[in-house]
């Protein structure tokens, strides 16, 4: 069974802390994505990566960075967490080839609270 695993389901951090959200996929997918989900706003793309060490900004990259040192792992980094980054974070992956490109597999999300 294919899987996208996010390291934490719930996370509480303090303002100014450096926060790492980890995502691992076991499907050998080329593409990985980080979305942020807020009530009434839907999902918005923060960053995506289409290969190891490659990254591109999505719609709301400010305040975030990412790292992809290995194909299966895509990390989202909040350099200095702020209260307006309290949100649900969803990781997803997809294959580069064939029908896989149009089918995203999602993790179960990390609910981050910044106090």
């Amino acid at each position, binding site marked *: 069974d294919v899987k996208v695993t996010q390291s934490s389901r719930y996370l509480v951090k303090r303002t100014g802390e450096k926060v790492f959200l980890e995502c691992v996929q076991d499907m050998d997918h080329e593409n990985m994505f980080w979305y942020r989900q807020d009530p009434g706003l839907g999902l918005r793309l923060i960053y995506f990566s289409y290969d190891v060490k490659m990254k591109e900004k*999505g719609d709301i990259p400010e305040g975030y960075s990412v790292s992809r040192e290995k194909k299966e792992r895509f990390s989202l980094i909040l350099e200095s967490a702020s209260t307006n980054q309290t949100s*649900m974070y969803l990781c997803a992956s997809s294959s580069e080839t064939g029908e896989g490109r*149009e089918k995203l597999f*999602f993790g179960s999300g990390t609910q981050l609270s910044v106090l």
Partner: protein
Amino acid sequence: AQTVTQSQPEMSVQEAETVTLSCTYDTSENNYYLFWYKQPPSRQMILVIRQEAYKQQNATENRFSVNFQKAAKSFSLKISDSQLGDTAMYFCAFMGENYGGSQGNLIFGKGTKLSVKP
């Protein structure tokens, strides 16, 4: 820029009845993909149904079907014989063939919260 609009923030339906969720989108592309995703309380996003714009036939998956009107840029989801397990957030999403040179970014609507009542 592509946009996706879901005009119904919340809806409710009685068990066993039929409900239709609305979605409109805006794009200048000719070929693209449209999706409906379901997010139950477990938070796991589940792909419900997918439509390719070049296909005129509306997609169906068991109790779920779409009404795809390309000229009107409309993509509604019909759920027949609603079940309690259909209670969830439903997101409409768009993916262009050549969006920003990337390999597949989904653009989501804001979602419709569907409650199925016994």
